[in-house]
Every structure is written in C-alpha cells, then in structure tokens.
C-alpha cells in the first residue's frame, strides 16, 4: 500500500514537472478572460466573454479605434441619400483560407446575421445591394445620430465560401480576415490564436489598432473566479487581465514587475423608478437626494468609480462637459427630508430589484442604509441574471425601484434609449412605465441630431422629472506583467493583444 502510494506520488511529481517544463517561449501572450465566449461564430450576440475576443477574431467594415470610427475592411464610405450609403471595400482582402472578400460576401454576412437574429440592431439595415465586386449599397430603414458607424461595426465579416465550408457555422473554428487565426479552442477553458503570417492589409498605416499583430501567439484563458484571476497573474500563468478586483490591485506593484491601469467601464449604473408607485416627482427627487453615491462607490468599488451626472458616463462624444460641474442630486439630507415631507411620505417600504453581483448587493445595501435615515425601508430583491431579465421588462409592477445598468458602443443617446425609449418596449411605456410625450420627443430629437442643445434639453428635462437617477460608472483594473510594455484596449475596455506593445 505504502509503495503504491509512493509510486503514485512520484508519478504525479514527474508529470507535473514535465508539463511545466514544456511551457513554451517566444512572442506570445496569455490573456485572462472572465467570461466564457461560448460560440465564437461571427453572428452571435454580445456577452462578457465575446467582447474580450471579438476584435482578435474578427474584422468589420468599420471599427472604433480609440474614440474614432475608422474603416477597417471598408476603404471608403459615400452617402447617396439620407438612408442610402455606398461602402467600398479594399480590393485585395483575403481571408485566412485565401478566399477573396467581395461585396457579395458583405451582403451575405448582413443577410445571414439578420436572419439568425442575434444582432437585433441590424434590423435598421433594410437591405444590402451589390453594385460591383467591391462596392455594396446599404439601404437603411432609419438612421439616428451615430447609428451608421455602429451598424457598420456591428456585423463581423467573413467570406461566404469559408462560412459555408464550416461544419458548425464557425462556432469553434472561424476563418476570418483577421491577422489571427484560432488554432485551438478548448471550450470553457482556452482559445489560442496564432498570427497567420500573411495578413491581407500590407499597408500598416491603414490598419486600425484592432487589426494590429504585434505578437505571434495569443492565448485567452477563461478564469471565472475573481480571486483566481489575481492568483493566475501572481504566478504569471497569465500575462495580462482587465478583470483584477480592486481590492487586490495593491498586490501588483511596480517593484513586483507589474503595471496597473484604470479603465473606465463602458456601462454605468442607474436607478429606475416605477412611476406607477413613484408618481410624485418630489418623491423621486427625495430618494435621489437621500442616496449618497459616494457611499455606494466606497462600499461597492472601494472608492474608485466615476460619479455620474446623467444616465451614462462622461466618456461619450455627445456628452456635454458642462454637466460635470452641475448639481445632480448630490446627497443632501435636508433637501431629502423636505421633499419626503412635501410628498407626504414617511415610513414607506419599497422593493428594489437588481441582478445579483457582489457590487450590486453592496450598492443596494448602501442605498438601503442611506434611506433608512429618512424612514424609508428598501426591501432588497436580488435576482440571478435570467430572472432579472424576466422581471425587468415585466408589464405588471414586479418592482418599485430597479438598479439597472447600460452602455453603448457609440453615443450617450443609445444609453438613454435602453430604458427611456417607449418605442423599444412591448407595452409602449419606458422601462419605468413613464408615458411622457415631452420626454419621448426630446429623446427622439437628441437621437436624430445629438447637438449639445438637443442633448442638454433632454438631460435637463430628465433631471427635472427624475424618472431615472444616474449613479456611477465602474472603473476596471487592468494589470499586466513586464511581458507587455504598454497595454492597449478597445472602447469597451477589453484588451487588444495584437495592439499592445511588447
């Protein structure tokens, strides 16, 4: 028995040594990813895992490079009329199997994506018409400000030939135009990309940061547990991660060979009032005044988060900078008390629903503690994400207050739209059950033309009515070892391994 055990132990030791020794060297990087991308095929919906690998896997007609939209596959964009645009692509694009990419493939991709239906924003694309080998004409059903660019970025492009040759609609082995090709995909664990060596865009100056290939091999390692993510970085099993819990940031010092960057999260948190319950604007304002957002930031984010001044953060191009200095329901106990009195409310109980996460629970608990001072009792109802999605859009009153979050790839109006556009709800009211024609028309005006005046008009009206109350935007912590000289991220705060400097 003892001999047997000793043998097993020895075997384990040898095996583990061997496997460690075989870790290879060279121009490669291991990126820690928190979410599981699942299906990495081109026409899938967005999720935490997918946004991490999106730009390494695919190229689109346009991409957002830093703060600007630039052509990637697209060489030139010409407006024909309000809802019609001609897109010309480079005439030397080839995918990783050598299939040339033409306008036919553009049409194929948009048509397929629309019919699969996982990218619902594409319903704004009425049809794509092939004008010549390299020019496609896009007919849109409607175009709000900023929509054009984000629609051209929404759909990853692959060749029809490669897509049809794939046995599983590219779910595990996509053939794309990107400089990196998936060489191994172990579902739920690792995805390995390698530089193909013959990227189609030979003019470096024309390729955006999303298409750079400064490293030969990229391995994405899926680590769902936050503590384990920091452990993996400590042991250098991963070189870089954008998901380092703020409590552990202090462990990654410059002396230890780490660099840390704070990256504002694309999404921001806000509070939605059920206006059936909160009919009185004073009551809504009283709640807003009674919540100390600084408390929320401290308890949920260790004091590091952006205090919002509207629904959404201040990183969007159509954000009006003057709002930064405005008064926005900053915590004021006297005001809150006065407004509660005016609304005639004391000792009320409200149900606050939120999607369960450590941060949301801390925020909800902090709000509950704040409002307790005014005799307001919040009943906290956390839900798992599927149930939250279910109750969020429920037509009947399943909640009184909702802690929600949202972000957009381009404009602030698209953050507002998520919960405040009546046209997007099945029951013709905003998520908070508001039916307010002024609000709707101001929103539509801002969406059609996001001039500072229009933006301000909507913002001020929303602030005055206080149908929703903007809270905070999280800041993500990106940390990396000396393998990377300078980290580069996409607009969603995700690492672009090919664009990092080594």
């Amino acid at each position: 028995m003892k001999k047997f055990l000793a043998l097993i132990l020895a075997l384990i030791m040898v095996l583990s040594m061997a496997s460690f020794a075989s870790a290879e060297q060279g121009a490669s990087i291991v990126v820690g990813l928190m979410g599981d991308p699942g299906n990495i095929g081109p026409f899938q919906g967005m999720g935490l895992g997918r946004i991490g690998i999106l730009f390494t896997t695919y190229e689109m007609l346009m991409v957002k490079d830093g703060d600007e939209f630039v052509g990637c596959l697209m060489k030139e964009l010409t407006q024909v009329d309000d809802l019609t645009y001609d897109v010309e692509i480079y005439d030397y694009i080839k995918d990783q199997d050598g299939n040339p990419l033409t306008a036919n493939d553009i049409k194929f991709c948009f048509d397929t994506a629309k019919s699969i239906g996982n990218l619902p924003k594409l319903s704004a694309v009425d049809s794509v018409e092939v004008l010549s080998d390299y020019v496609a004409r896009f007919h849109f059903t409607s175009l709000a400000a900023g929509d054009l660019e984000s629609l051209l970025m929404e759909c990853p492009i692959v060749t029809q030939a490669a897509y049809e040759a794939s046995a599983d609609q590219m779910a595990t082995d996509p053939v794309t135009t990107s400089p990196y090709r998936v060489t191994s995909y172990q579902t739920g664990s690792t995805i390995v990309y390698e530089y193909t060596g013959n990227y189609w865009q030979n003019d470096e100056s024309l390729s955006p940061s999303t298409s750079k290939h400064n490293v030969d091999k990229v391995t994405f390692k899926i680590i769902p547990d936050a503590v384990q993510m920091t452990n993996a970085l400590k042991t250098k099993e991963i070189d870089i991660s954008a998901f380092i819990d703020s409590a552990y940031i202090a462990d990654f010092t410059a002396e230890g060979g780490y660099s840390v960057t704070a990256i504002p999260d694309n999404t921001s948190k806000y509070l939605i009032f059920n206006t059936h319950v909160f009919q009185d604007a004073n009551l809504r304002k009283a709640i807003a005044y009674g919540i100390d957002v600084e408390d929320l930031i401290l308890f949920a984010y260790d004091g590091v988060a952006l205090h919002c001044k509207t629904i959404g953060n201040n990183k969007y191009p159509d954000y009006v900078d003057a709002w930064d200095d405005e008064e926005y329901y900053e915590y004021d106990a006297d005001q809150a008390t006065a407004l509660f009195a005016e609304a005639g409310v004391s000792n009320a109980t409200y149900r606050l629903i939120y999607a369960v996460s450590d941060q949301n629970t801390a925020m909800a608990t902090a709000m509950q503690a704040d409002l307790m001072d005014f005799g307001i009792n919040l009943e906290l109802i956390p839900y798992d994400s599927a149930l939250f999605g279910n109750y969020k859009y429920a037509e009947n009153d399943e909640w009184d207050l909702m802690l929600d979050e949202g972000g957009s790839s381009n404009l602030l109006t698209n953050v507002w739209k998520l919960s405040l556009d009546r046209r997007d709800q099945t029951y013709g009211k905003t998520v908070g059950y508001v039916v307010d024609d002024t609000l709707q028309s101001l929103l539509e005006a801002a969406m059609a033309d996001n001039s500072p005046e229009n933006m301000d008009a909507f913002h001020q009206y929303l602030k005055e009515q206080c149908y929703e109350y903007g809270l905070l935007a999280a800041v993500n912590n990106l940390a990396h070892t000396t393998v990377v000289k300078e980290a580069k991220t996409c607009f969603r705060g995700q690492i672009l391994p090919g664009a990092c400097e080594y």
Partner: protein
Amino acid sequence: MIRYIGKRLLWMIPVMLGIAILIFSIMYICPGEPAQSLLGPSATAVELAAKREEMGLNDPYIVRLGRYLYDTFIRFDLGTSYKFGTSVFAGLMERKQYTLVVALLCMALQVFVGTPLGIMAATHHNGLWDRVSMFLALVGVSIPAFWLALMLVLIFAVNLGWLPTSGVANGIASFILPCIANSFAGIASQARHTRSSMLEVIRSDYIVTAKAKGLSSKTVLFKHALPNALIPIITIVGNGMGMMLGGTVIIENVFAIPGVGRYMTDAITARDYPVVMGGVLILGLIFSLIMLLVDIVYAFVDPRIKAQYEGKKKAKKAPDVGTAKGGA
C-alpha cells in the same frame, strides 16, 4: 438475478420519459429569459420578444413538449446549445473527460483514504485515533469547498509555485488541487459512515462469537466485519459517484475546469434549454445506471438481499441463507 437486471433495465424507459417530461415542465414554468443571453444585455424588450417568437418559445406547452419528446426519443437529437452553437451531446462529450477525471480521482481518494480512517476509528473506538480522525472528518465536512480550494491555491500555487492555479493545461498537475479540495468532504463522510457501520457490526453477536472462537482480530475485521458493514458504504459511494459525474460546480468554477457542472450551471443561469434538458437526461441515465449497479453490488455483498430481489416465491427460502450468514 439476470431477470432482475433485465427488469430494471426495462424500467429505465419510463424513468427516462419521466425525467424528460419533468425537466421540460420545470423549464417551462421557470421564469427567465433565454433570449437575453443570446442578444446580450443591451437588447430591448421589443427585440427580446421578437427573438422569443423566432425561437418558438411562445408556442403552447403541449406543442413544445411534443416536439421535444419527438426530437429526443424518436430522432435521438438532444438539440443545439443556444450559447455554444454546438450540439448538446457533443458539448457534454467534450466536457465529460474533465469531470470524469475529477470524479474518479475524488472517489478514489474518498474510498482509499476515508475507509481506512473509518476502520481505524472504529477499531480504536473512543481512543485517541478515533477522536483525532473523527475531528478531522468533522472539520472536513464543515469547511466550504471554495475556501479550502483557495487556501490550497494560495499555499501550493501562489507561494510555493508547485502547481498551477487553475486551468487544465498542465495534465494531471492541474487536477491535484481540485481533487484534494473536492474530496475533503467525501473523505470525511466516508470515514464517518465506515466508522459508524463498523461499530454497528463489531458489536453484533456473530463478531463477538468469532472473536470468542479465537480468530485473529485481523481475520475477524476483514473477513467478517467489513463485508457486513459495506452496505451503507456502497450506498454512499454510489450516490457520490452519481453526483460527481454531474460535475462539481464550485470546484470547476474556482479552478476554471470546463467540466459538465459548469456547462450545466451556466446553461441553467442562461436558460439554455437544450443544454439543460439534454444534460439532465444524459446525467439521469448515468445516475440510474449507477443506482442499478449499487443494487447489484448489494446482492453480491449480501446474499440475503439477492434472495429478496428474486421474487416472493424464492424469498420464502431466503431465511436459511440469512440464518447461515447471521450465525457464522
């Protein structure tokens, strides 16, 4: 016995059908939005409603149930995962190897460490060994698996650097910490159960008789006491094996092991209906088979039980067997 096994295998059919209908009905009444995970968090209510309609989720219960049963039992098709876009069966097959490795290693640890601990405790009843091993067992079941897991990682991976923190890329080395963390509770409960049933048997008349006859205590222990104490141990091992093949979510999450447990839990959270229903069915089948195996093993360990399986007529004769054994 063969007849009994055949009958039990035939019983599998209604059981599978029962599982299919039950899991389908549960998924039907469970609130939650499968379209949400497909479209991402920024999908609006209108977009979600359209997707639901397209996925056929708005059809009446009976239509969807009929479609599901037809696909599953007539076409033998478990469907395609919403999230992964690959077939559910392939998805399970891809993940089963990791779960299998963890389950087998854990069960081995549980049986080969837990049982000796338990026997030791029983033979030294109320002695120091008993106290120490039982205290360890209690600590074992009370420590949450994630806590133990993270502590082990901190010591052996982060500080000592002997083993990887997570993932499955390093062969067997990747599974050492997960298995230790995961089997702790199993070892503990195995030890407790072994001790308890050994104590029970050691006190019974025939062991006392055997001892009185002057047989060596080793012979008594392994030839007479252990086989009679095995029934609860077999139950525990069988049940544990069945459960572990369903995957251990906590360990798989902490150690980033792409096993069946994470596949299923993620599917439950995202309401990935095909994965949940297909997975439950396959795991249910495996579980039922293991339970059958447990019943068969019972019969081999204890002939009296075998007699009971073989129907009423023969059972009348069974007491002879029982007496013979009992009086040994």
